[in-house]
């Protein structure tokens, strides 16, 4: 296997708190890629945006009784060096302001995502 260090992965997450079972894996894969020394960003857009509202991710538990929530994973992702970014336009759809976001999330516009997709070695779309 070639050394993957420094490869760029862009994860696009379009699912949010209305479909909890679709929220975990993309974050988990991003953490795995960061652990493998890749440069990883998750881009939250469409329904994916709403999980970044303060207080929302804590409500979604991976497995009932596990104590591991979506917020646990988002925190792990930030600790692992995964960059979290959100689509500015989709924040408007959810009536979200910058101060509603959890810490560590960068707001980017639509043109940025096109640049990031072109620069990435691989895009994973969920």
């Amino acid at each position, binding site marked *: 296997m070639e*050394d993957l260090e420094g490869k760029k992965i862009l994860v696009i997450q379009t699912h949010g708190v209305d479909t909890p079972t679709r929220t975990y894996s993309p974050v*988990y894969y991003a*953490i*795995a890629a960061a*652990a*493998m*020394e890749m440069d990883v960003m998750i881009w939250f857009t469409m329904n994916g945006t709403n999980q970044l509202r303060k207080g929302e991710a804590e409500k979604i538990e991976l497995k009932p009784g596990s104590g591991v929530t979506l917020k646990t994973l988002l925190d*792990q992702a930030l600790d*692992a060096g995964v960059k979290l970014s959100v689509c500015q336009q989709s924040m408007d759809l959810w009536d979200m302001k910058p101060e509603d976001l959890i810490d560590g999330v960068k707001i980017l516009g639509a043109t940025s995502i096109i640049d990031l997709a072109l620069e990435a070695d691989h895009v994973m779309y969920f």
Partner: protein
Amino acid sequence: MSDVGEVRGCRIPKDLYYSVDDHTWVRLNEDGTVTVGMTDVAQNLAGPVLHAKVKKVGLTRARGKPIGTVESAKWVGPIKTPVSGEIVEVNEKLAEDPQLLNRDPYGEGWVVKMKPTNWDEEVKDLVTGEEAVEKYREKVEREDIKACDHIE
């Protein structure tokens, strides 16, 4: 082995060197190589390991860089080497039986052997003996890490 410290049921052998923040241990071998692994506290935090991927022999790693990755049902993360050097041997058994990391973290669950390139300097940042047990006790209490489970 009698000289083993214990913190909330987690075993800390006193003859090893530790990077407590990264939850790794180092054993200095007679031939000048070092064996590196994950601590009992680390296996406990990760839970039963489902996959362990270890880097290849011949790769040179700076201190703090991953020598492998570990995944469980609830956690995935790197194992960061506490010393710089070249990987000279990897534990092939982990691919077949990753829970060696849980069952025997200081023995059969070792991760890599390395030829250290800056041991004399880097060992100063590691802790051993009673000091290691105390440092671990402080960390476990500060972060309120749960008592160690040992799977069979």
